[in-house]
């Protein structure tokens, strides 16, 4: 039975491949694959919400005149945060299912792996969910666009704005692996460049539940700012325990280097208040953002969109624009080149551009988490503290390690 099912599945895949050979008169068929974590650690910041955002972008684009001649399908899958599962799905999508572009892909490990596959198969990869700045650095390819944020932008935004506002001594609580080290290194460089000083740091193994010991070390360092160079559950536990030890009341401030709206929601304002963080997009900033969030919430059990969702929406829209302008979608590098040529313009991120290294450029924002008493309605979490203009928000091309940039 299992064998039969496998043959059946294989057969239908072959059929799908055959159907894809199109005649010029028929509308251009585009297949979009949203590949992310549907159930694990990153499901709340991307997950099913990203699929909704991609579908929303498709619907919005097909309603415009430019969308007349397109026929767009959206499929999705769960990579379970495993790089091998992610690449297997990506290969199968590209090889047999006729997927033209993969979107979202949180989790740097999976994103870097999919990045390779997209280049090998000459398809398109538009990342919104992953933090790795290598995607537009060392590992950049002519087939990849990185939309929403990256570690460099977060480190730069948070580090610079806080140091300039007087938070000039820092203590880092760093997750002890490549990601944490990178985040700490980048932030420390920004702090130093802006006249601040790093007075100490502690390297903490991943998935450490108890941060009291490290928080006490941070406390006795007398640093004004405690930078949390970690992610997910580690960040949440360190913030929660900082509240318990009265760190914020003691006059020190916490700076989360990788925190999303969904994390603040799960912490609750009582614990998260006063936290400073950088995001690329917040739902309660413009009327259009609010309209998007309202529709999103209605379709997602009241959950409000994160910047990753917004990035998937904007990335999908811009991709479709490029495909419509080209009138073709099979040559991935050509589509990405067109995406870079066209200025980006959508209702969520406004006007921007995609640089030669694949980095999409837009302003970043520094927020402070509100006190419970200041929050008037659901998801009313942030106060805007500073805007980092687009030309300062991302790693300058002059510092880029991307081979695409060097040769030009």
């Amino acid at each position, binding site marked *: 039975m299992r064998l039969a099912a496998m043959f059946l599945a294989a057969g239908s895949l072959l059929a799908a491949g055959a159907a894809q050979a199109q005649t010029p008169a028929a509308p251009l068929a585009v297949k979009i694959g949203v590949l992310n974590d549907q*159930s694990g650690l990153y499901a709340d910041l991307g997950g099913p919400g990203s699929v909704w955002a991609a579908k929303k972008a498709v619907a919005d684009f097909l309603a415009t005149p430019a969308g007349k001649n397109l026929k767009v399908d959206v499929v999705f899958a769960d990579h379970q945060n495993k790089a091998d599962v992610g690449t297997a799905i990506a290969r199968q999508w590209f090889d047999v299912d006729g997927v033209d572009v993969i979107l979202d892909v949180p989790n740097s490990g999976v994103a870097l792996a999919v990045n390779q596959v997209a280049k090998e198969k000459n398809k398109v990869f538009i990342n919104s969910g992953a933090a790795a700045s290598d995607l537009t650095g060392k590992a950049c390819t002519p087939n990849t666009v990185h939309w929403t944020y990256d570690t460099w932008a977060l480190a730069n935004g948070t580090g610079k704005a806080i140091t300039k506002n007087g938070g000039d001594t820092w203590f880092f609580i760093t997750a002890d692996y490549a990601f944490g080290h990178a985040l700490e290194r980048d932030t420390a460089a920004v702090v130093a460049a802006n006249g601040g000083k790093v007075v100490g740091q*502690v390297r903490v193994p991943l998935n450490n539940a108890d941060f009291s*010991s490290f928080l006490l*070390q941070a406390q006795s360092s007398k640093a004004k700012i405690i930078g949390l160079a970690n992610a997910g559950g580690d960040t949440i536990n360190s913030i929660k325990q900082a*509240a318990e030890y009265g760190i914020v009341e003691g006059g020190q401030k916490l700076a989360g280097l990788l925190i999303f709206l969904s994390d603040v929601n799960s*912490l609750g304002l009582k614990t998260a208040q006063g936290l400073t963080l950088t995001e690329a997009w917040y739902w309660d900033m413009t009327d259009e953002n609010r309209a998007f969030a309202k529709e999103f919430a209605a379709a997602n059990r009241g959950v409000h969109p994160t910047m990753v969702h917004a990035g998937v929406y904007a990335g999908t829209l811009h991709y479709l624009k490029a495909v419509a302008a080209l009138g073709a979608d099979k040559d991935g590098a050509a589509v990405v080149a067109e995406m870079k040529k066209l200025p980006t313009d959508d209702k969520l991120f406004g006007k921007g551009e995609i640089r030669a290294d694949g980095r999409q450029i837009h302003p970043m924002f520094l927020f402070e988490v509100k006190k419970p008493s200041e929050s008037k309605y659901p998801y009313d979490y942030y106060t805007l503290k500073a805007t980092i203009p687009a030309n300062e928000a991302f790693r300058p091309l002059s510092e880029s390690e991307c081979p695409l940039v060097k040769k030009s």
Partner: protein
Amino acid sequence: MFELLGIAPQALFGQLLLGLINGAFYAILSLGLAVIFGLLNVINFTHGAQYMMGAFGAWMLLNYVGIPFWGALVLSPIIVAIIGMVIERTLLRRLYHLDHLYGLLLTFGLGLIIEGLFRRQYGSSGLPYNNPLPGGTNLGFMFLPNYRAFVVVFSLAICIGTWFVIERTKLGSYLRAATERPDLVQAFGIDVPRMITLTYGFGVGLAALAGVLAAPAYQVSPTMGSNLIIVVFAVVVIGGMGSIMGAIVTGFGLGLVEGLTKVFYPEASSTVIFVIMAIVLLVKPAGLFGTVK
């Protein structure tokens, strides 16, 4: 920076206290494992999931029924224990006549199911649970949150109480006898199967209790148990499961060792317990308090 000699004695004292708090969780969890293993000869791999259920139980009682932490401290372990006893009656019981490994595998599978269901329902990023005892005392060398102080005292009381019941009371003597010769105890007219069920329930209840205690300190999340349980397994291997006191002492002791590692070499704090386990295996394979079975 924190050089080896740069640590003031007071700071060291503070860190030791923190280690003790951490050890309290290890102690309660390994105690629960030891109690279950003593009578059932099963390593309860669901222990981590049951710890998580305890924390979620507290969260649900608060958010769905409005019962605060102190009520949940009693209710949540009882509810989880009842679920545990149902599992014992319906599933675990069928495996007693087989190799003990099947019990391990069954409870492993149950753990996956429970974790998966909670993930499906509540997502992975976790839920907030407010501290029932905010504030703290400045001890001069450190700021001790009231809640942490409560955890240490409370868990010590639970551990010693359990030890007392099992080692010093009549009920405990039945239990210990049933561990050695269930057939003989049965012949004396004691309902051994019921005793097994209740013991499993008690062990599971301890896990859930640790979960409730963890809820205000850590994030309540579906994955909170699966990482912890492996460390607790190492604790159990180090201590050996021969004695109740052994489980308690090893739990607190390793908490202290881990606390010290966090000061002197934080990078190794997640592995130090495993290293100790390897050394103990080389020197005393049966564990510090164990007897070769």
